[in-house]
């Protein structure tokens, strides 16, 4: 997020594979935001980062009942709680 120094947050993009985090909020809008929500990436949902693709991007996430993949570009717009906040 080099271009917006005003917004600095911990995003799904920063989470190492194998770690579980909770989503705080979305920083995207419109279709992207809607699609993320549709797939179950809603605020206060726990997410397990399963792995990165062999070329590092996209990443695979495990939600309650489904596995979902998204590009790091979009993952970077999903703010997550710091582990100690949970």
């Amino acid at each position, binding site marked *: *997020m*080099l*271009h*917006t120094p*005003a*917004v600095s947050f911990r995003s799904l993009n920063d989470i190492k594979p194998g770690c579980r985090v909770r989503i705080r*909020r*979305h*920083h*995207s*809008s*419109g*279709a*992207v*935001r*809607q*699609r*993320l*929500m*549709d*797939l*179950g990436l*809603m*605020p206060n949902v726990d997410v397990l980062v*399963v*792995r990165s*693709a*062999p*070329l*590092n*991007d*996209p990443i*695979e996430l495990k939600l*309650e*009942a*489904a*596995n*979902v*993949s*998204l*590009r790091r*570009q*979009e993952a*970077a*717009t999903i703010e997550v709680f710091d582990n100690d906040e949970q």
Partner: protein
Amino acid sequence: MTNSDLLVALAGQQNAGKSTLFNVLTGARQHVANYPGVTVDKKYGVYRDASGKVTAVDLPGTYSLTSFSLEERVARDFLLIEKPDVTVNVVDASNLKRSLHLTLQLTEMGLPTVLALNMMDVVERRGTQIDRDLLSERLGVPVVATVGRKGEGREALRSAIRTASGTHAPARCSVDYGDLETDIAALEAASGAHGALADIPGRWLALKLLEDDRRAVEIVRQRLAGDAADALIADAGLRAAAFATARGIDVPDHVVACRDRAVRALLDGVFMAGTRETGSTVTERIDRFVLNRFAAPLFLVFTVFMIYQVAIVWGYELTEYTWPLLAHTREFIAGLLPDAGFLTDPYIRSMGLWLVDSANTLLNYVPIFLILFALIAMLEDSGYMARIAFILDKVLHRFGLHGQSTLPLILGGVFAGGCAVPGVMATKGIPDNRARMATIFAVPFMNCLAKVPLYTLLLGIFFVENRSLMMFYISTITVIFALLVSKLLTKTVLSGQETSPFVMELPTYHLPTVKGVVRRAVDRTWLYVKKVGTIVIAVAVVVFTLLQFPGLSDERWAHFQTEGAKAIATFETKMAGNAYADIATGSNVVGLINFSNDYKRAKLNASGASASSAVNDSFEAANPAFYALVRPPRGDADAKAASRALRSLVSTRKTLRREMKEERIRSSLLGTIGRGMEPVTQFAGFDWKINVALLSSFAARESSVATLGVLFQQDEDQNASLETRMGAETTAAGATALLAVSMILFFALYPPCLATTVMVKIQTGSYKWMMFSILFPTVLGLTVSSAVYSIGKATGASGIEAMTAVYFGSLALLIVVGLFGRRRRSAFLPTMAHRPSLRT
């Protein structure tokens, strides 16, 4: 429609098995149409139950019913405007929580709904049970358990549809939107006052207006007068803004949150035993290997190689068994058409055979496509296709494509062998519109099956020593070109297209069922035959005409007639005094020649000794007198002499006919066009013959080699292959391997064949893009070929040197573009900047 006829819509999320259940519900009778004005397929089928006819429509798979994506808009408009009697909501029972979001959106629209809990077997295998009665009671809609893949639950679903169609009470369940309810009520009252909006569910419209849904706003503007519409929309906007300020959360998020709470409440106590899923461990174990950083590329290459090996290589071997069937059909039709004349054939005959030949080249690929489509269906059904997209997305995304572009590219023929028609067809599944468009234009650069014969021909003439190196160059350079072109297009003409994020589900692995795979393979092949078939036939007629007219001049025609008469006279002189003279001469000559040619062809088609002797028997039975001349009995000196004379006559006739054909093509419309193009194509080294071959290959690629075969004709006595003839002629004309490279490059970049461009029209929905798909590659191909040929000629480079230079040049360009083409995040940030800190 009588009262007992029903219109049913199937709605559901992707991967819920909706299409499979649709097949189960409607059986074999299905039709595909397009939704008006868009490129989304509208699949519908009809079945009868005890009370009447039921028409079921398979809506596009959607996660929700917003107006963000084309599929969602199409599905929602159908529900809103067509008002189906019953909506069947197909949900993945193993993923109920997420699926019910869509269910609540459907009931909000006030539609009589049936909930089909699909994939119940997966749930049961996990040891979980779902209390369907409780769920049905809470939702206020009937709930049916189905297993689409096994065809279970059809009757229950059909009877539930019938029952639901009778109840017009809106579903009981409605989501409580908390603080937003007052705004909803106010807007519902305001919009309810307008009669023009009476057929739109009020609560739904109010909610959508508060969410600032594009399509809902459109509906209001369409139905209401300017002032009234403005007032309603402005009211909704103010209320939404006030809500966002007061609550620190904007309306769409609040709506999703409320719906999520409602879903949780609905599901409370519905699951019995083991609510945690345990069944995904198999999938996890497979993925640990298949998506492993090191194993993934190997496994992927292995899979694609196996597709190539099984479908293309073995499929090609299979066509050796199916080809005789097509050849027999041709013979049969040839027998029905009027007989051939001595010098010219009746138009009906030549046109008829031309059409049969065109159709046969196409049908010859059917076994390959059946296998290819079956393998692809297995990849899709198993869930591995989504993994391929996951692995390759990064590379493809760099060049403006999408992880899901892989399937179209494989179908198009990443390794030599494929077809752009199903490739372009398969782009339908790509959710990102810009990447989808880029893929549509990239697929035709792949090496389709029909490009291969020309490559083989040219390599056989000019690159005998470097054949495999050249083949490697050709099959990989097309991928390089495709990537570069899609990057270029994405940055230029496609930059304005809608994009959407790569957010894709990685479904649980399923074992594909035989029925499902066979059905899909047959369906797709049939679609290919139908679509391509009609176009190829139509185009064949046009090309035939362009090659026939205006025909020979009277003077040349007279010349050939004299020659023909002379040949017959010679034959009759030879036959004078022969015991068979009466049978073989006069009005019998043409019949005899045709008999002899038919016999020769039948012998060629017959495989094995018994088939061959069967041919002998049938020809002998058909005309014993002619047969004696074609196959002289032992010891019959007169028959032998007559047979010799006949053979020489047949050969003279063949030469004459070929000369006539060449002259006809040279002076034909297509030939004229080919010659007219020489001033431009000379820079690429193409003369009019090559131009004609390339022009006719636009109709169907296969014909390039056939046309070259006609143009570089051989004399009867010198039984040389096309390779040798073309080699000799072009070398004599000063052509070099450089020309071959120029031709290969042009052919690789050449516009898609007509069938593909029609598919481009279907998939893009516009003639403009279709024209673009023709013009752009033409210009690109000519530019590249001309540059390579001219520079190569000036520097005296050999063919292989030129090709190597082009290859590594474009490879370097690819790497540079790949490294610098890294998507800058700034392109994405503006959307984020809009909503900096609504809530903190």
